[in-house]
């Protein structure tokens, strides 16, 4: 964590205070009710957190990637669904508009998003288009000076309450991205429930039936929706998820340490058992390594390094993997209590699993990382064995 002296605006201190007082005690309730209350979202907006990574000229806090990562960790450690709001609204939507939208679109929507006057969501996935996101079937056509959208999106976090949807649709083989307002005729929302994690994230399906979108609501240009807009969004989303993994793993580490320091079995605290210590040692090491990978990705983003994208993928892959391992160990250390929803371990365990799926599965990350490995290291080792 950054020291307080490195937090001149006090935003990190405010985030930690908000997480401790508004989220930590209520996260379990949000999870059970599958509902993130509007007062929480309002307070996130009032604190400026929803525009954390948006430049100040557009109403945001202008945090750099490292600062935004630390904020994400603080929020995510207390409540995964609230952190999901940062991932979706701030990273996937607002940051993408900062980079890829025209000034006209920014003026129309970005300040509202940064200030939380509108909530955004990212509508890419469909029932038949998950990892193969380029295979979306939601269609658009140009007609009488507008774009007309038809299709159906699924697994869209915060679609249940969002005011603005970043939608990906296809005409022939050209995927394009559009901003669609919720109250546009032809838009229908069907809430989803029963999810493994992020239960309070207002997940929903969205159907579009003859939805007319103004021409100026095209993001970037025709045909650049997947290659440029979606990939930009997913890059920011993966960075957010990488920090989310650190957050959940840190929470699990603290939970298991506190429990093992108190719980007595066989007449001794279970923390004195070497096999329990092994799990704690692994967790300490893994959480530290994941946080450093996240920071490395953040620094490369600040330098606009060509390696920023792949290093972000590496951080996301590693931190989501270790979050699953550490939360599993936390459940193990807590035993029966680890399986009970009156303790946080089981919720952290469920939330961690989700991170291995969203914003590109671990398997997709492995493919990209292996490809990077061949490019970077095959030449260096070409003389091996000769």
């Amino acid at each position, binding site marked *: 964590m950054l020291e307080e002296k490195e937090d001149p605006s006090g935003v990190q201190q405010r985030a930690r205070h908000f997480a401790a007082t508004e989220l930590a005690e209520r996260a379990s309730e949000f999870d059970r009710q599958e509902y993130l209350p509007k007062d929480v979202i309002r307070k996130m907006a009032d604190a400026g957190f929803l525009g954390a990574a948006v430049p100040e000229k557009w109403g945001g806090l202008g945090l750099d990637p490292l600062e935004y990562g630390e904020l994400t960790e603080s929020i995510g450690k207390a409540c995964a669904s609230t952190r999901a709001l940062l991932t979706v609204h701030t990273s996937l939507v607002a940051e993408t508009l900062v980079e890829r939208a*025209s000034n006209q679109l920014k003026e129309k929507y970005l300040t509202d998003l940064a200030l939380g006057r509108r909530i955004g969501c990212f509508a890419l996935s469909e029932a038949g288009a998950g990892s193969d996101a*380029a295979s979306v079937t939601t269609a658009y056509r140009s007609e009488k000076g507008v774009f007309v959208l038809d299709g159906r999106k699924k697994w869209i976090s915060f679609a249940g309450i969002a005011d603005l949807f970043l939608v990906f649709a*296809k005409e*022939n*083989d*050209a*995927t394009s991205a559009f901003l669609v307002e919720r109250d546009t005729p032809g838009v229908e929302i069907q809430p989803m429930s029963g999810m493994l994690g992020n239960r309070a994230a207002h997940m929903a399906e969205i159907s579009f039936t003859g939805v007319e979108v103004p021409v100026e609501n095209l993001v*970037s*240009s*025709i*045909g*650049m929706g*997947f*290659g*440029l807009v979606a*990939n*930009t969004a997913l*890059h920011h989303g993966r960075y957010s998820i990488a920090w989310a993994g650190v957050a959940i793993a840190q929470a699990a580490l603290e939970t298991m340490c506190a429990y093992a320091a108190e719980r007595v079995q066989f007449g001794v605290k279970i923390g004195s058992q070497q096999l329990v210590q092994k799990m704690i040692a692994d967790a300490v090491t893994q959480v530290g390594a994941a946080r450093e990978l996240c920071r490395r990705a953040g620094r490369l983003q600040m330098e*606009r390094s*060509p390696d920023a*994208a792949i290093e972000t993928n590496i951080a996301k892959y590693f931190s989501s993997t270790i979050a699953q391992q550490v939360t599993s160990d936390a459940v193990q250390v807590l035993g029966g209590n680890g399986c009970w929803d009156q303790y946080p371990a089981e919720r952290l365990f469920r939330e961690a699993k989700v991170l291995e799926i969203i914003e590109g599965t671990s398997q997709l990350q492995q493919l*990209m990382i292996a*490809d990077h490995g*061949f*490019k970077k290291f*095959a*030449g260096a080792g070409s003389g091996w064995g000769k």
Partner: protein
Amino acid sequence: MPNEAVMDVETVTPVEDDTVAKAATVVRNYVRSNMSALRDEDLHDEDNIFEKGFVTSIFAMQLLDFIETTFDVEVPDDRITLQNFSSVQRISRMVGELKNA
């Protein structure tokens, strides 16, 4: 990305400007450094890098950032099209036009 690339077959003017030629060298090297090490096929300046599968879709984002950072240009919205980013030849010509504008 290859399956969504909509390209015309317009003939591109051969590279003649010095700025364009230098840009072509830099872009060619960058694209090559991002091609799969498991592919044996070589890259030609007129090849459509997405349709031929030399690079993956995520490369479009990296390529735009690389061009703006390396050549100190801002690619305007109306230039950000699949066509302008489809080959070393087209990219370097666009860079030359932006530098000479």
